[in-house]
């Protein structure tokens, strides 16, 4: 049993150091896995220290909870598919936020006459944790397609949200001012849960990377607030590290879409576009369809090929076949690279994980800024299941809803082949000028099917 508070603090300090080192190791894919192990050791250390604290009871319940939680977590982590990683992260955000809110709730229940500062942190922890929990559950449902991924909006939505959040804030202020009734926190948590649902519902599927990052930051901040409730530095620091990570990713994602965070959260993207794209004048240019054999010849005689993958590729489960195609081409001496747009996929960095799972070496994966100068010297670009991130209108058409968004400059290559199921518009619902370009040919059909045909055609050519 550890009773000396200084010893406890020093033991927790080891955990803090481990967490910081584990994040530091994430700077390179070579050491990242080692870093995760260090973080894991830090966590075990913190759990061990806590279990050795003096005066703990209810051991049966503690062990039972640890076992149930471990089994659930392990099964989830083992069975989740890489395409479903955004849902997984969303649900873990929710679970962490929920735990923080519950800790705050029990502290409120058990502290007879809390100090003012303690009340502030209990209120914040309950508020942020509950928003994160409810928001994450809705984000999960959207990503898992349990409910429509399209924005769900109604008139006066933002007003309702402001009213709910205002009510929550007023309740919180009342609690801090001395209204220390049990029902205050119940009501506060209910309002926060309601707000969490309301603020994620109107956000469209394409904006999910921003939302998940934001919820990640929320959960971190909730954990940090819990640290203030329990006077625990390890919670304060760890929670804040996560808060910083989430905030940074939120800003990066919003920047990659050239939109402000506020616009993502309250703009209900995807709704507005349906109308504007339809009025686009047809200037007589048409798309040119091509065949797998023609593309195979193009690819076989190319020197440099860049693959620009989008989420459509992952939906078709074509990433393994794309890698095979790249292997076949490389055997013929073709230089193959992958161009990854920051918002390719459904969460930050998602496309890299999907390709890594398909055994694409990470040295072949290139970020947008790094690879954009390469396109003018590239013979063929294969656009697979990507749409809006290749749309030149983002550079040239001030009227386009994605104007100003940084894109992959695929149109600067000598020729472009777009693998696409049909001519339907992308997630944002906007026409893509690229398809009308004289250098572009379209290979229609299921991405996996098309790539398989390409592999055999390249082998035979």
């Amino acid at each position, binding site marked *: 049993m550890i009773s000396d508070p*200084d010893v406890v603090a020093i033991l927790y300090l080891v955990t803090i150091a481990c*967490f*910081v080192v584990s*994040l530091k190791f*994430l*700077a390179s*894919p070579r050491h990242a896995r080692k*870093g*995760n192990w260090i973080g894991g050791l830090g*966590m075990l250390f*913190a*759990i061990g220290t*806590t279990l050795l604290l003096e005066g*703990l009871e*209810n051991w049966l*319940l*503690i062990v039972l*909870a*640890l076992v149930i939680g*471990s089994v*659930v977590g*392990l099964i989830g*982590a083992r069975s989740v598919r890489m395409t479903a990683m955004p849902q*997984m*992260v969303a649900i*873990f955000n929710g*679970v*962490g936020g929920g*735990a923080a809110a*519950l*800790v705050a709730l029990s*502290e409120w*229940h*058990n502290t007879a006459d809390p100090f003012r500062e303690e009340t502030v942190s209990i209120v914040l922890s309950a508020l942020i944790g509950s928003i994160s929990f409810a928001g994450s559950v809705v984000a999960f449902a959207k990503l898992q397609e349990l409910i429509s991924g399209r924005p769900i909006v109604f008139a006066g939505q933002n007003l309702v949200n402001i009213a709910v959040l205002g009510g929550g804030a007023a309740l919180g202020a009342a609690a801090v001012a001395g209204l220390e009734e049990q029902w205050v926190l119940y009501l506060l948590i209910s309002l926060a849960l309601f707000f969490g649902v309301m603020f994620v519902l109107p956000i469209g599927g394409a904006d999910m990377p921003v939302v998940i990052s934001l919820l*990640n930051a929320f959960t*971190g901040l909730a*954990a*940090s607030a819990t*640290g*203030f409730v329990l*006077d*625990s*530095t390890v919670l304060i620091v760890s929670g*804040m*590290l*996560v808060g*910083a*990570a989430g*905030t*940074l*990713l939120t800003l*990066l994602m919003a920047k990659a879409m050239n939109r402000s965070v506020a616009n993502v959260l309250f703009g209900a993207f995807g709704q507005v576009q349906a109308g504007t794209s339809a009025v686009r004048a047809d200037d007589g240019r048409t798309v040119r369809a091509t065949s797998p054999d023609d593309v195979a010849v193009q690819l076989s005689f190319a020197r440099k090929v860049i693959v620009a993958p989008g989420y459509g590729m992952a939906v078709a489960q074509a990433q393994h076949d794309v890698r095979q195609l790249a292997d076949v081409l490389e055997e013929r001496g073709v230089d193959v690279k992958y161009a*990854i747009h920051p918002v390719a996929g459904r969460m*930050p*960095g998602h496309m*890299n994980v999907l390709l890594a*799972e398909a*055994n694409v*070496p*990470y040295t072949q994966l290139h970020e947008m800024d790094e690879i954009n100068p390469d396109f003018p010297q590239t013979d063929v670009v294969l656009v697979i299941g990507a749409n809006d991130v290749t749309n030149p209108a983002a550079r040239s058409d001030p009227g386009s809803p994605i104007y100003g968004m940084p894109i992959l400059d695929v149109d600067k290559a000598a020729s472009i082949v777009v693998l696409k199921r049909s001519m339907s518009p992308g997630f944002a619902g906007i026409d893509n000028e690229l398809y009308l370009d004289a250098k572009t040919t379209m290979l229609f059909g299921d991405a996996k099917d098309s790539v398989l045909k390409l592999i055999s055609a390249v082998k035979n050519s």
Partner: protein
Amino acid sequence: MTDLPLVIELTILVLAAFLGFEVIAKVPTMLHTPLMSGANFIHGIVIVGAIIVLGTADDAFTKVVGFVALVLATANVVGGWFVTDRMLGMFKRRPEPKREEPRK
């Protein structure tokens, strides 16, 4: 736990924020998904709070709340760690050093 003055705790919070931004800004885009799940794992540290709540609970309400909190936090920690490990294990450099062989 140690009863630190609020000012000290706030100082720690602000410094942790700066540290977090510095460290995380260096994570390459390629690893942003593992970064998120790794961050997920780290906020599982609320498990410490959940253990304390359940371990010191003496009424039914707190026991239930603490139990649920501990299950959630444990799932968060275990799931977050394993999924991050699984993902990071997939990032490999070129497996066959065919072209580099002549250099040996």
